[in-house]
């Protein structure tokens, strides 16, 4: 009964209820998971856009500008901004929001910072859940900003319909452009700070990289958008409007070519996989840790009295019947 009250409030856009639920999901409180069960069935309306790129590339500033651009057109926007958790203390400084504070009072915008809490793929474990909450709040567009990412943090593709990879000039030679990983996941490339030296070189490297591709799914060749100095306000805003329009074009392309279904399917598979892992593995790990079994095994590994592969196989036989 209480849960449907909660759902009603979130649907009505109640910030307090939504932000508390996101927090309870982050903290993995069981009642929050139950609430999510109800919410899930009402999701799937928002266009989810991932923004990734190296630290300092300008992701937060771009997100801020994209919010402005979308709000001009009357879209409502939810933002999830992820920053890293300290591996030593568990603490975090979540500073993406600094760039977006001018939207703090706009009721059409909801910005939430998340710490990675040990997740390695450039996001936090709760991102998928938080997307559902913002979706049910009725946000048309959900922007996910990853941690400052390097080459390998590509989890964002499992959570978004459109991925923007933000690059800046001067980050390395042309071999970087043909490496696997982040360069492969872009639906749209942004060359940010394009007023700086090396922007044209980077542009040419990207074009060369794209020319080598055998095919583009759905015929979508990732466009490359140059965005200059954000202090040059007028041209900056124009470039960002162009980016926003390209994001919309991409979504339309996904819809028309049926690729949207594929992305939804990928997302659903990842969600199911994660939930299965949580439901099956977590209780076993918990039990093994609490019973002291885990310490015993580690001790054995260190003394070379056992190997992790046999231990895992035996544990699987014991727990999974």
């Amino acid at each position, binding site marked *: 009964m209480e849960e449907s009250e909660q759902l009603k409030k979130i649907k009505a856009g109640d910030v307090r209820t939504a*932000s508390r639920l996101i927090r309870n999901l982050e903290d993995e409180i*069981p009642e929050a998971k139950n609430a999510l069960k109800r919410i899930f069935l009402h999701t799937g309306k928002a266009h989810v856009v991932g923004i990734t790129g190296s630290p300092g590339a300008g992701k937060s500033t771009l997100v801020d500008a994209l919010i402005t651009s979308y709000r001009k057109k009357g879209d409502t926007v939810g933002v999830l901004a992820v920053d890293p958790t300290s591996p030593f203390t568990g*603490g975090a400084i979540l500073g993406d*929001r600094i760039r977006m*504070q001018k939207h*703090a*009072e706009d009721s059409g915008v909801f910005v939430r910072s998340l710490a990675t809490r040990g997740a390695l793929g450039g996001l936090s474990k709760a991102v998928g859940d938080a997307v559902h909450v913002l979706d049910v709040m009725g946000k048309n567009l959900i922007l996910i900003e990853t941690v400052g990412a390097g080459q390998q943090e590509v989890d964002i593709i499992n959570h978004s319909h459109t991925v923007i990879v933000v690059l800046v000039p001067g980050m390395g030679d042309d071999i970087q452009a043909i490496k696997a990983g982040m360069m492969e996941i872009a639906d749209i490339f942004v060359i940010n700070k394009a007023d700086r030296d090396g922007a044209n070189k980077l542009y040419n490297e990207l074009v060369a990289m794209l020319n080598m591709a055998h095919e583009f799914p759905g015929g979508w060749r990732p466009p490359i958008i140059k965005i200059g100095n954000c202090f040059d306000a007028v041209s900056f805003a124009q470039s960002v409007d162009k980016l926003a329009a390209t994001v919309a074009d991409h979504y339309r392309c996904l819809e028309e070519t049926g690729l949207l279904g594929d992305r939804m399917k990928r997302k659903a598979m990842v969600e199911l996989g994660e939930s299965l892992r949580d439901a099956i593995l977590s209780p076993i790990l*918990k039990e093994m840790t609490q019973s002291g079994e885990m310490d015993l095994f580690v001790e054995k590994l260190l003394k070379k009295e056992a190997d992790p592969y046999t231990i895992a196989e035996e544990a699987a036989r014991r727990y999974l019947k």
Partner: protein
Amino acid sequence: MTEKRIRIMVAKPGLDGHDRGARILARAFRDAGYEVIYTGVHQTPEQIAAAAIQEDVDLVGLSCLSGAHGYLFPRVVELLREKGAEDITVIGGGIIPDQDFQKLYDAGIKAIFTPGASLESILEWVGANVKPRD
């Protein structure tokens, strides 16, 4: 695993841009294991209150060095109350004359730290007074 983590917002209301202290404090909170949201400088009380609710923090630490704390600090508390977020603890710091303390306490500011306060004393206060939500 289930763990109710404490989230802290460090905010700079008003027009002074001196945020060295706020940044050091944010770092100290980080090192103590808290998740810290920093708003940046030049914030209105309205922005701070709205952000605190969106981020669902347990504690807001306000830093003001301009002398406008007498308006800015109470206004943040008032706005949080208006939005039903009176459970968020608000503390303040900066250049604050002794004779202003009582007025700020009366307005709902739970603690005040001025130049010379050690990071340890601030962390100790937070540890003792800010508990994970129910």
